[in-house]
């Protein structure tokens, strides 16, 4: 049963990017305003789910040829690695570091190791959600 849903497909193409960039936004904004890696990951996953609804799994896999299992692994390693950084400086496991920097264009910005940890969370969430949806969806 393959239908040609012009309207939903056309809309999905545009809305996907809007959702995705919104996800990126709330990921970075998370430390000061609502958002964060967990929600960001879920929003990204929902953007991909939208594509899957509009097209189908195979098409989406050719558009985004990502092995989500790897994504999960990379996310976990990143999260664990960030938490472990502090051990090399003699501080207890999971000590975060932050400081304020003057970056070009962005101006005064705080850079935080928590963001790296959050990136790990983000990758795991996207990876796991998409792994589950993809494997169940592909299963015949």
């Amino acid at each position, binding site marked *: 049963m393959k239908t040609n849903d012009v309207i939903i497909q056309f809309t999905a193409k545009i809305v996907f990017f809007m959702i995705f960039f919104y996800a990126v936004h709330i990921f970075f904004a998370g*430390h000061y305003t609502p958002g964060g890696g967990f929600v960001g990951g*879920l929003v990204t996953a*929902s953007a991909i789910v939208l594509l899957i609804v509009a097209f189908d799994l195979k098409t989406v896999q050719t558009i985004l040829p990502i092995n989500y299992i790897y994504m999960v692994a990379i996310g976990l390693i990143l*999260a664990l690695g960030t938490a472990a950084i502090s051990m090399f400086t003699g501080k207890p496991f999971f000590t975060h570091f932050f400081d304020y920097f003057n970056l070009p264009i962005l101006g005064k910005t705080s850079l935080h190791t928590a963001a790296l940890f959050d990136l790990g969370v983000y990758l*795991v969430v996207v990876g796991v959600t998409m792994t589950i949806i993809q494997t169940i969806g592909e299963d015949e």
Partner: protein
Amino acid sequence: MFQVLCIFIPLLAALFMPFFFKKVSTIHTGWFVLVVPIFLVSYYALFIPTVSKGDSVIAQLDWIPSLGISFVSYLDGLSLLFSLLISGIGALVVLYSIFYLDRTKEQLHNFYIYLLMFMCAMLGVVQSDNMMTLYLFWELTSISSFLLIGYWNNRDKSRFGALKSMMITVAGGMMMLGGFVLLSIMGDTFSIRELISQAPELSTNDLFVVALVLILLGAFTKSAQFPFYIWLPDAMEAPTPVSAYLHSATMVKAGLYLVARFTPIFAVSEIWIWLVTGIGLLTLFWGSFFALKQRDLKGILAFSTVSQLGLIMSLLGVGAIAFHVDGAQETIFKYAAFAAIFHLINHATFKGSLFMIAGIVDHETGTRDIRKLGGLMSIMPVSFTVALIGSFSMAGLPPFNGFLSKEMFLTAVLSITEFDLFNFSTWGVLFPIIAWIASVFTFIYSFYFVFHTFTGKGKIDQLPHKPHEAPMGMLVSPVILAGLVVALFFIPNMIADTFIKPAVMAVQPFLYSSPDQIDIHVAAWHGHITTELKMTAGIIVLGLALFLTLSRWQKIYSLFPSKLTLNNLYDFIIYDLFDRWAGRLSGLYMTGSIRRYLSYMLGSISIIVIATLFMQDAFRMNFDGASPIRIYQVILIIVLVIGTITTVFAKSRITSIVALGLVGYTVSLFFIMFNAPDLALTQLVIETISVALFLLAFYHLPKLKKEKERTQFRFGRAFVSIAVGAMVTLVALSAHSQKLIPSISEYYKETVYSLAGGGNIVNVILVDYRGFDTLFEIAVLSIAGIAIFGMIKLRLSKKGEKL
């Protein structure tokens, strides 16, 4: 610092092995692994000059300082000797395995990861001064042994053997942990050295004997002492390099190490001396006697290992007597500890080489059944020579190292009769007799092993493979070990000064202040005919006579009742008691229905919570400060209720899903209303994704049949649902109505910017304040994702083939 890290080098190296195996497939992965033990053996060799003077080197890395748990690398004579054995034999075994395991057919990366994991664990066991990390490494040796025995996991016997060894050694390990905990309560420290320094006070404690027995259980299970030895013969399903390494040279000696290490603490106790000596001798006899029943080459070696471990164990027990006597007697008993360490080294050399020969025979002929073997001497001359050296040393013949330590063993057991404490004067006379009989059997099975394999009428053309001498590379390791067997006979005193005396000092620290004071001189010939020499002559004469008539009396083994064995007891406990009976009990409630499991979980938690709430009189209702209920909230609640009812009673699945989505979205509206944007956002997205997921999953389900009759009302389910609802409501009301402790949110408000550099408390809690939670949550999430992936992608079809 580096000293501690060295324990972990094998584990770090293991990380790279899959890479080497997959990417550098033209070179056997073993060559990369070989670097690790060679590095370690040369690193530990640097400590020899310091340690042989009687000093010790210690390095510490804190792990959980608040609980006093740290990684300690404590190198004294005993632990350095073990470390050298582990890395040295490890290097030889890895070299041997390169030729034993085929690069193209075997899953080498798995094998070497397990092996390196074991090496790390074993180094940790012998170097840890902290009992908690010692226990950690101890269990890691059990786990890696389990994985290595079950390496050929498509064989039933391998899996059985692996499970058996795991069950027994881990059970012992748990006992040992109990003993450690008791000791740490008594001495208020986890450090073994500190416990040794307060040994006299410890012995008066009521818990002392309990701790002693528990720790001995750990040691006895690991070192395959009677009656726990039954796992070792089954462990022979492992690839031969593993048997040579774990099950003869290193892991099974962890129990001996433990006994040696704790001797200064427990030697004051009569029970310790009786148990260690008695069980040791019993094991020595039992193992040597039943070795002759075996038909499998490795089976013979397994029983022989059991018996030799018993020998060393009993020597350690006799050595503990030295704490109770003075003067001339003391020197005799000092002999025992010395002999124990000496025999431990000797056993590692000759048994290692014999295992490797058994592996070679298996590899080149395709069988290990001693009835099918014979006459291989002319075909495999080098292997025969090595086997001869190893067996003669095991039998206690000169000019091989086994002779020296066997003589010292006889000296030690003879001296027991002169010890008049703890009833030894009456029962002690049995000890040399048992030891002598066991030695006769040891002599017979040594000959049985070598001569029934290599001499006699060969049925060479009936063997599975056409036999030929092993390749050079495979022979290197056994030849080196056999060379050591001979060399140790000629230079025993050099070895004694470098390794044995410092190790003895660790076992008997109160008796000496430096290793030079141990005035023991090893000699093959004492200048006159001693009792020990006469006993050895007797062993040879009787042994030879019995060996030559072996075929006539070997039938007596079939006279033993085959039902009443320890193996059957184990099978009864594991398969009847646990599997069948316990399985039947579990089967009553583990039906496989998820619905039912949910009812158990939700039902029990709501009962527990509600009951606690009322028993503790914690329920309160207080609406002070509550905001008035507004009309749109009432509307939302009505929507929520309608959505819930629709979900439950809907006729089609699509309606159910949509209604469930409605519930979720309404809840997120509530979050918005109560100023929780983070929660609202998350709830919204989760609802969206789970609706999509449900639709995907339901796509695969068969069409729901229109149920004609009404959905049956089930009292049980209604009860659980209502209980859960009631629980949540009651808890929410009580939580709101009483503020027993100040809320933690004030702390977050104060510190979120100054300490965590953030503004959004919710997110800072997630990534910083309670980062551990998040870390574990994403780990669980990943496991769930991978599990679903595995369940669906890797499932087997009905015929058992992979889809």
